[in-house]
């Protein structure tokens, strides 16, 4: 016996969650098999579809850029329908917590460095800070939160030519924490509205900002405005200041990413997806070109999981779905073929932000997202790939990471589910 399901999705990020939700819609019995906590914790929480392609962009309409993408890009397999389906699953999963679904147009969101990036969906708390909407902006940073330097971000944003004025100030947080306190500590203090000198965390903070406000009509903070009671925190601050407040997505560990992870897992629960997390898939048994069993390393002991259909959504180089040594690029679970130049000096460009070959490394999917071997033949009849493990997209340059994950996840999950329930 092994633990048996119809569809087994390997991974724990956006692609895996979407694939699982998509497969569950077909009525299949689905299991998500995740290793560690997902890289969503390191992600901004923004959902990009396509901002740039080649030398073109930024696109205000992400779908308009599809034609400019290289031929082997995964978007050409899933098509506009696949992207829309991925976004639909996402919108259903997160509900009101995200905005952007009302339009096909990209929003321009500021990053914690003060750059502006085109994105398709953004957390509700980020919305009042869009660079594409008007209103002078005050950015607030804190001494102890070194990830966000408000004056520098304001200067960058101004240099980017936004049509409103931006000013940044650095304040003391009303409660003093250790010098390397974690962002969650700040969030909790606001969540609980802890008492501090002169009042409570929220009121004293609002007073300090009020004294700084100089006609600005919106106030931005690094993403730290509460965790469990974030709506309440933002509402109270906005109320006291008389202007909208917003959050700027930050680097890891990102509160917005953590919240997105929670929302996606809640959606999985609701859809009846079973979840096994904490151990990596390391091996498999196959027969006649079909994967019969996936082997999970459960603290050095091997546990078998069986399913009719498998979706591989283990991520790219950062998520460890793709492994590398000095000579080879490999896909560690099923040994899927990943083409790469033999000479590793051809894997990257001299410029840090150049068009690196490694950025596009990944499995080569057929038109059903099944990984193919060197000769272009399907490697396993019942294996599909989704997300970062799929090659062909340069997600960092294109600003397409979430879109690739959502669309390939939606299509791979649906095909797997349909096949398994036939």
């Amino acid at each position, binding site marked *: 016996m092994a633990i048996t399901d119809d569809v087994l999705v390997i991974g724990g990020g956006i692609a895996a969650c979407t694939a699982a939700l998509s497969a569950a819609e077909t009525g299949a019995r689905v299991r998500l098999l995740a290793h560690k*906590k997902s890289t969503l*914790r390191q992600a901004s929480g923004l959902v990009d579809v396509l901002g740039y392609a080649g030398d073109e962009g930024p696109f205000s309409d992400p779908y308009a850029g599809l034609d400019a993408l290289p031929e082997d890009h995964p978007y050409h397999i899933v098509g506009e329908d696949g992207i829309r389906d991925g976004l639909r699953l996402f919108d259903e999963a997160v509900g009101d917590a995200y905005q952007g679904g009302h339009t096909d147009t990209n929003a321009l969101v500021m990053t914690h460095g003060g750059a502006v990036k085109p994105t398709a969906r953004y957390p509700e708390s980020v919305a009042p800070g869009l660079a594409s909407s008007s209103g002078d902006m005050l950015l607030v940073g804190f001494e102890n939160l070194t990830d966000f330097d408000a004056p520098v971000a304001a200067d960058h944003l101004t240099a980017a030519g936004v049509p409103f004025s931006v000013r940044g100030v650095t304040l003391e947080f009303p409660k003093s924490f250790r010098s390397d*306190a974690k962002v969650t500590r700040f969030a909790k203090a606001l969540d609980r509205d802890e008492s501090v000198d002169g009042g409570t965390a929220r009121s004293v903070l609002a007073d300090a900002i009020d004294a700084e406000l100089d006609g600005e009509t919106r106030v931005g903070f690094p993403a730290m405005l509460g965790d469990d009671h974030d709506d309440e925190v933002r509402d109270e601050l906005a109320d006291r200041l008389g202007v909208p407040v917003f959050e700027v997505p930050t680097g890891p560990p990102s509160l917005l990413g*953590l919240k997105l992870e929670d929302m996606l897992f809640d959606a999985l629960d609701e859809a009846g997806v079973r979840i*096994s997390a*904490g151990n990596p898939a390391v091996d498999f048994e196959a027969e006649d070109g079909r994967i019969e069993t996936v082997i999970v*390393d459960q*603290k050095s002991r091997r*546990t078998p999981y069986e399913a009719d259909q498998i979706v591989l959504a283990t991520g790219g180089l*950062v998520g460890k779905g793709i492994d590398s040594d000095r000579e080879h690029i490999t896909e560690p679970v099923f040994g899927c073929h990943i083409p790469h130049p033999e000479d590793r000096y051809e894997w990257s460009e001299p410029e840090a932000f150049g068009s690196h070959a490694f950025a596009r490394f990944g499995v080569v999917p057929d038109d059903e997202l099944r990984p193919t071997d060197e000769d272009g033949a399907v490697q396993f009849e019942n294996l599909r790939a989704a997300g970062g493990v799929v090659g062909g997209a340069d997600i960092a340059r294109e600003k397409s990471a979430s879109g690739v994950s959502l669309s390939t996840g939606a299509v791979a999950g649906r095909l797997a589910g349909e096949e398994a329930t036939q």
Partner: protein
Amino acid sequence: MSDAESPTNPNLNPGAQTDDFEAVEVFPESTDMDLRPGADNCYKCTACDVSCPVAEVDDEFPGPKFQGPEQWRLKRKDDEPVDDSIMSCSNCMRCDDACPSGVPLSQMHNTARGEYVEKEMDKLSREYIRNRILANYGTLAQLGSMFPRLTNAMMGNSLVQMVNEKVLGITSERDFPAFATQTFREWWNERGGPKVRSEEKRVAYFHGCYSNYNTPEVGKAMVRVFESFGYEVVVPKQRCSGTPMFANGMLEDAKRAAGINVENFSGLLNEGYDVIASCTSCSMSLRQEYPELFDIDGIKDVSEHTYEALEYLRIHENLEDELREVSVDDQSFAYHAPCHARNQGLDRQSVELFRELDGVEIEDVGDSCSGISGTYGWKEEKYDKSMQIAADMFDHMEHAQGDVGMTECPTCSMQMEHGTGYDIKHPLQLLEEALV
């Protein structure tokens, strides 16, 4: 398992014959554990710190990243002493699960704590003596359970509790767990050992201290359920799994216990037995901590054959179908997954299984830590923090539909009961009710 080395066996020189490549010895040869490869994997993303329940409530605690890779680097350069904050780590091992980079955090913490206790701690200090007593709960329980009624009356006495707190630093806020009037092993011997004999289906039960001395009903449920599936159950002599010893840096005590356990269980593996535990910290210890920390003959074999009881049935039997065909009296549970279950990937299995069982409502109360972490919450100076950590779990339990708690971990269950007044069941007890 981690990328770091297990303690090296000096007789082995892996890879030496396999190619012509001549390795240059950069570091002096040592039989100590080499955690450097693991430490180098840390890219300081602080995912571990964010997942640490102690750091969340204790502003003084520098967090797993400092305790692990940073401290390890500091130490390699000069002979820096281990920072005393290591004693505030509760060994929940959540950092292991959070690390995206395979840094063996808990292994580093266990090692550092062992070194701190050995080199820095005054062996006559109240803290050391108290920790030693708590870490060796099994010994204490053995004495206590000789006269269970007397011990229970005594430990429940407020004067005794006050003395415990003032003299030993064991909190008086908690009620000592009652000792059963008959231990699991006494029951086992009285019933004459296994009732089922089988050549094919064989398990050796690691009951641990708690289900032996305090909750023998869990052990009995485990035996009855496995026998109902036709398993031959044996119960080898055993010591504490070592979990409380790791958490208190008593590595010598832990190694002694591990040695006895490995010796008693590894011999059975050849006869076709697998090792089953009903406590998720016990199975965690045998599976992960033993091979990470000790070099004992047969240790890897035991690790590879150890299962949590429910997990074993899920893999080897058609448990889901069995449960679908039966029903129990209506009952509703608030389930809490112990941190150590989480780390073995077992945190969802009870909810998943019992959802299918007619008569049962079960709700996962979320991923908050119970905060007691074995002996941690018993320490007078840690009690408040342990309750602060638990606040989320209490809150979620009270908001859950269920009015009975469920968990696999004995100390989580103490904390759940302490904070909510709910009765707490072990999944095996419900399984017994459903299947036997």
